């Protein structure tokens, strides 16, 4: 990931290339700081503790999903079914809590997330359908199942202990989901950079045929990556259900777009092979800050569609320009 682009410029005769490299490499982190500082100066409400906590909370829903998605994109695939999967896991969770208790219900929903993620992986690798169209179809199926399971209703959850997972804070400062988000990123970073599996992910993402030739079990690696996305999505679904104290089939509509936009704006290449979890982490915070600002300045929720799409396309444009500059050098 980052090491490769760093090494490229070692011994370069032009020291300013390193500055350019630093800014492009930590682009989203720098942008996040600039935007956050500017907003704090401009708007007194923005810098209140409550609002900042709210931003961290909002960031953790897309952030947790984006952690798994980063690994999957590094392996050279996508999952567009996450919105449906999150709704389905949320509905199942909300339905199960009164019957079997909080912990078993959460465990069940995580297992279902893992299983359905693996199913996505199976459809993509074994039926050999391009990932984005296969998962688009799977999304329809998951949304439909969530609708059927919930009867089209909103399923309320009244357990106060469970609600704490979404609305509570640790040490009185950090929202619980944000703490979980940090742990998720540490875990995924560990997987990506410290394990053999992580190296395999990068290998098949940068050159699948070479990976296959070298004897890597490409399909199994990718199925596991899909399963990780499924688990992360179910985890995000758990906290979203807790925060809303309810679940319904379309509680996360548009989630796939936000999550992929977060990963891409964080600097992970859609071509696969390399990715940065630190970037995705900052990307999630960035989108939460932007959406928060849109709310504070009273711009309607509809603008969020426009802004998210614009950021996705411009981030890709910047990536494309950057890679063409690097190729010319």
């Amino acid at each position: 990931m980052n090491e490769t682009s760093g090494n490229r410029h070692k011994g370069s005769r032009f020291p300013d290339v390193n500055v350019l490299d630093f800014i492009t490499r930590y682009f989203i982190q720098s942008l996040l700081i600039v935007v956050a500082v500017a907003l704090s100066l401009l708007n007194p409400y923005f810098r209140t503790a409550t609002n900042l906590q709210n931003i961290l909370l909002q960031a953790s829903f897309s952030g947790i999903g984006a952690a798994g998605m980063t690994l999957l994109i590094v392996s050279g695939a996508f999952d567009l079914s996450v919105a449906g999967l999150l709704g389905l896991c949320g509905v199942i969770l909300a339905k199960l809590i009164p019957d079997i208790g909080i912990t078993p219900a959460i465990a069940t929903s995580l297992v279902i997330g893992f299983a359905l993620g693996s199913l996505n992986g199976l459809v993509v690798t074994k039926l050999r359908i391009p990932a984005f169209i296969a998962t688009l179809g799977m999304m329809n199926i998951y949304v439909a199942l969530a609708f059927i399971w919930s009867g089209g209703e909103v399923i309320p959850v009244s357990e106060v202990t469970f609600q704490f997972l979404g609305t509570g804070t640790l040490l009185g400062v950090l929202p619980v989901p944000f703490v979980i988000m940090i742990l998720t990123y540490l875990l995924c970073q560990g997987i990506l950079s410290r394990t053999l599996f992580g190296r395999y992910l990068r290998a098949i993402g940068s050159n699948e045929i070479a990976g296959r030739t070298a004897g890597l079990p490409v399909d199994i690696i990718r199925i596991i990556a899909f399963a990780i996305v499924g688990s992360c999505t179910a985890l995000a679904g758990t906290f979203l259900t807790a925060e809303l104290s309810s679940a319904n089939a379309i509680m996360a509509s548009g989630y796939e777009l936000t999550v992929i936009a977060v990963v891409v704006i964080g600097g992970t290449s859609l071509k696969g092979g390399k990715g940065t979890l630190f970037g995705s982490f900052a990307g999630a915070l960035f989108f939460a800050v932007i959406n928060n600002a849109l709310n504070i300045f009273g711009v309607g929720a509809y603008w969020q569609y426009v802004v998210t799409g614009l950021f996705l396309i411009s981030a890709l444009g910047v990536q494309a320009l950057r890679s063409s500059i690097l190729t010319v050098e």
Partner: protein
Amino acid sequence: MSDHEKELGREAVPKLEALAHFIQVFESLGVLVLLVALVVVASIIAPGFSTYTNIANTIIMASITAATGLGMTFAIAVGGFDLSVGSVQALTAIVVASLLAVASVPLAIVGALLTGLLLGLFNGVIISKLKIPAFVVTFGMMSIVRGVALLATQGQSVMITNHPDFATLNNGKILAIPVPFIIVLMVLAALYLILHHTPFGRHTCAIGGNRAAAIASGINVDRVTIAVFGLVGVTAAISGVMLSSQLMIVDGTLGTGLELQAIAISVLGGTSLSGGNGNLVGTVLAALLLATIASALNILKVAAFYQYLFVGVLLIFALSIDTVRRIIVEKSTLSRA
């Protein structure tokens, strides 16, 4: 791509060739056979299906999807996709409804088609000039255009009141054939001619079949790609106009999931995801098939959720068949070597 390869494979592997041939026949005839069988079954188990009104409604429903599906077939042939068609349909429906308040019917329709064309061209420019994969560009555009559609209407509905004649575009009949279906047949004829009898159509297939070879042989890949996406935008706009004349009241949430249906009918109709070819007639037949299923499920009072489930399963099924075909083509190519 495949015809030549299949011919070469014929001598070496008769068995695979037979399978490939079977699938080819399945593609062109299969959807038709399936459609006829389904209509017969539906008429028997769902009384009320075979009435003229219901059949006309089913055909109208199919026409609205088919118009976009025809454009999508082109996009798949060139080796891309357009996920923004649902949002474009919504926005163009709003454009036509808003323009009807101040302008004549033809002018409003032209305005909507131009909007679709511009959005499609924009997709094409970003895809080809920035070299970003089509599906992410159109995925982003799906969100942007949806946002614009919602912003333009402030989440409210727009009613078409002063042009009641606009509805005849939907419920009018010529020789008992619904007008939307006649429009689709005209679009089909035009696109068929373009795809099979013009240099532009040949270039489209060449790019989808082998991009590198197309570039090497001097085809202006960017220009063709931009034009194809412009065309997809226009077909989505045609669907938007049809939908607004059907509903006579439109809002920014229309058309969600249209991209999925359009891709499903293209693939089901026999257009391979590997690009390089398009089966336009199959697309229209598959649209009729999908509408027949939906109509039968409606009459049988199956909840909308299950219909949603069904589209997903059908898409995965169609794509699996496509995979089998791709594998066969690959194998016959390999065994020739």
